[in-house]
């Protein structure tokens, strides 16, 4: 396969959109935030997407201090499906579903590092699903190398990290109720507890045939700890 791939529908890109994105979802490659200033662009605050690779954005339970983000802007013309050309952007059709019709793109030329501590989960408006993440990786890698890697291989490379993010989301979901007034402190502590518990499973997640058994083990642990 030698061509950039395309989703079959906009819905295929997104894991969550809109107001009900769970706070428990770990910050991840492809997340879109409002009100982000990207140093060096001198364009004020606006929408921005995390482009730092999923495998390198964390150090243990913590986000790395700086993340690479791309400016997200509206676009007057729709990039039809299947996507062709438009190599400098990641199309984000129907990004603000139910809020504002239209099309947005993340532009790979409008990049900068943003302090991860400045990202506010209440300003997160979209999270990409696994398919969306690998399509972003494929387009971004092509932008900087003019080389195409097929998305199933990109998925194979990061599927362990995608699976771990999902398990961390389940852990935080079960341990930190959304209405907890101290949610941020609680979730930070629980992320550290997850890290302590999960360390021995991390290597196993690289083997697809072991993933289901690891998910079962984590589910049992969550049930034991949090009922």
């Amino acid at each position: 396969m030698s061509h950039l791939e395309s989703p079959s529908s906009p819905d295929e890109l997104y894991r969550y959109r809109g107001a009900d994105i769970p706070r428990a979802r770990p910050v991840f490659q492809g997340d879109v935030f409002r009100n982000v200033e990207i140093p060096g662009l001198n364009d004020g605050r606006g929408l921005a997407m995390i482009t730092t690779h999923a495998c390198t954005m964390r150090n243990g339970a913590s986000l790395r201090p700086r993340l690479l983000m791309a400016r997200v802007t509206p676009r007057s013309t729709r990039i039809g499906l299947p996507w062709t050309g438009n190599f400098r952007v990641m199309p984000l059709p129907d990004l603000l579903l139910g809020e504002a019709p239209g099309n947005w793109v993340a532009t790979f030329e409008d990049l900068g590092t943003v302090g991860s501590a400045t990202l506010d989960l209440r300003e997160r408006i979209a999270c990409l699903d696994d398919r969306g993440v690998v399509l972003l990786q494929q387009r971004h890698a092509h932008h900087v190398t003019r080389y195409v890697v097929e998305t199933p291989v990109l998925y194979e490379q990061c599927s362990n990290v995608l699976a771990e993010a999902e398990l961390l989301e389940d852990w935080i979901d079960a341990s930190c109720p959304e209405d907890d007034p101290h949610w941020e402190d609680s979730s930070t502590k629980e992320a550290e507890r997850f890290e302590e518990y999960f360390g021995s499973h991390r290597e196993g997640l690289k083997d697809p045939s072991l993933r289901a058994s690891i998910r079962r083990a984590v589910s049992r642990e969550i049930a034991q700890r949090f009922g």
Partner: protein
Amino acid sequence: MTSLNFELDMTPGTGSTGVEAPRSPTVTMASITNRYGALRDRTSILDSDVGDDHRAAQLQTLELLARDRAREDVSALLHGLSARRGLGWSDIARLVGVSVQAIRKWRQSGPVTGENRLAVARLAALLDLLEQVPVSDPAGWLEIPLIPGYSLRHADLYQQGRADLLFDLAHLRNSAEEAMAELSPDWRERFRNEHEVFDAGDGQLSIRRRV
């Protein structure tokens, strides 16, 4: 393969004893070959007919079990798929044909259409049936590729509406190559990965061109 069990009597007849001369070996071989050929054609047709009927019966069994499982609460079905089976939420969403966001709402007892309820129940039923084959860890089995170096996973067959191929694979009634060829005659070109993943030595995986 069973060997052909016959002997050729090469003793010539006397012509005066009334003993019949043996048939020509050539004629004997030809008739046996023809009979085997005809038998093979018949069994091949029979195999095809029975195979089609068997697949239809398996899919009907899946549907009946799905309707039975659909009587359960959807959030309980989803919890079972995740906690008891070990499927990831992204895979559940993909195999049911909805977003993770929709799955999350259903987990919290949000409204579900009858069609989606049945789709969740069908996935639960699929894993039940695979376990009976037996596939010891059906969710783990669904995640692995059919053939290393090709991008199709067992779960992809189900997503593409070919649970019948999945059942045949689980029962060892067809090979992975046969299943992929039935799904797509150009599978070698369509699903082949030109790259491979390897351990980069820093605890992470990396990608390189396949040699």
